[in-house]
């Protein structure tokens, strides 16, 4: 009889626990903590984007050395780079080989990001894929799809929405969606 993934995971955990390599209670805590939303989340990414919109000096540092600029919020475990959208260039992030994602500043990736459908199609037909997210990219806009094939992680710095002059970081951050930082969406309209 084939074991279910649940049964296999339970057997694996029991053996690892019995030999002191993991601890049941610590796993309980880690899962509860992550599920409660206490772990990394897209809120940090949104804050970084909003700050870059209002603080040109920070934006310059962020684009030049993201690991250094983000260090005041969080130390990075792997290289990080920020790709800035302009009125004529739009960036989209993917990891065709697995699911590399800037989890420290965006939290865990959504299932669609890890799906074969997204991974295989967005490198080949990004306009069709973005249309499924409800996003039209005008023909004159250059689309740049970045495949995270090495250890570096990427964040898109989307265009600041019109009609937000004078807004502060907190107000702006509320407009920054997770998908707008992956490139499969735009920030919310004010």
């Amino acid at each position, binding site marked *: 009889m084939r074991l279910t993934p649940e049964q296999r995971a339970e057997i694996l955990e029991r053996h690892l626990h019995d030999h002191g390599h993991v601890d049941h209670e610590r*796993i309980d805590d880690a899962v509860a903590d992550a599920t409660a939303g206490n772990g990394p989340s897209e809120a940090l990414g949104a804050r970084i984007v909003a700050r870059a919109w209002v603080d040109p000096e920070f934006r310059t540092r962020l684009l030049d050395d993201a690991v250094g600029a983000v260090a005041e919020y969080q130390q990075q475990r*792997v290289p990080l780079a920020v790709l800035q959208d302009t009125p004529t260039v739009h960036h989209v992030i993917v990891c065709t*080989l697995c699911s590399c994602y800037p989890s420290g500043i965006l939290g865990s990736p959504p299932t669609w990001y890890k799906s*074969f*459908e997204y991974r295989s199609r967005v490198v080949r037909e990004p306009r069709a894929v973005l249309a499924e997210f409800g996003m039209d990219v005008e023909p004159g806009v250059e689309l*740049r799809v*970045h495949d995270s094939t090495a250890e570096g992680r990427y964040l898109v710095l989307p265009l600041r929405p019109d009609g937000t002059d004078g807004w502060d970081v907190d107000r702006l951050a509320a407009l920054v969606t997770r998908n707008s930082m992956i490139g499969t969406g735009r920030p919310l309209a004010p």
Partner: protein
Amino acid sequence: MHGFGAIPIETDEPLFHEPWQGRVWAMQRAVAPTTDRFRSTIEQMPPAEYLSSGYYERWLWALERLAAEQGLLDSDERPRRGSRPSPSAPVWSGRFRPGQRVRVVNATTAAHTRVPRYLRLHEGVVERVAFAWPNPGESAATGRYGDLELVYTVAFTAADLFGADADHILTADLGEGDLEAA
């Protein structure tokens, strides 16, 4: 590989769809010697099984094998782990410069590589020296992080890769050993 359907976009998605997935997620760090060894183990999954398994089922499959090969299932002995690199800007110059035309090597190894098949033997232009990180093939094979290697962001014209209908630019991060001057 292509022929996949619509992107499965879920709204209000839970972090884990079933409780066991969270437990597998939480065991990963204790069991995987390096990220590359973990990825490389997942890639050993028989292709039909890989394509019909969910994300955390693939993780589980790899953790079962990694735990067994390190003796974690029947021994209290702690596995020896090497140190982890940290992200820092490279301070040396490499073989390639921004603006230079390069060709991706034909990385046909049976072992681990981070060169996607769709880029092999294609030419692109170096955009920047992105960072330095241990070679993934070596770290996958040994379970230890080795010497740092320069990694370049290279831009490809999608029409060269996928035909004239593709009008975008594709960029990828490739190690110095994955590239040659074009």
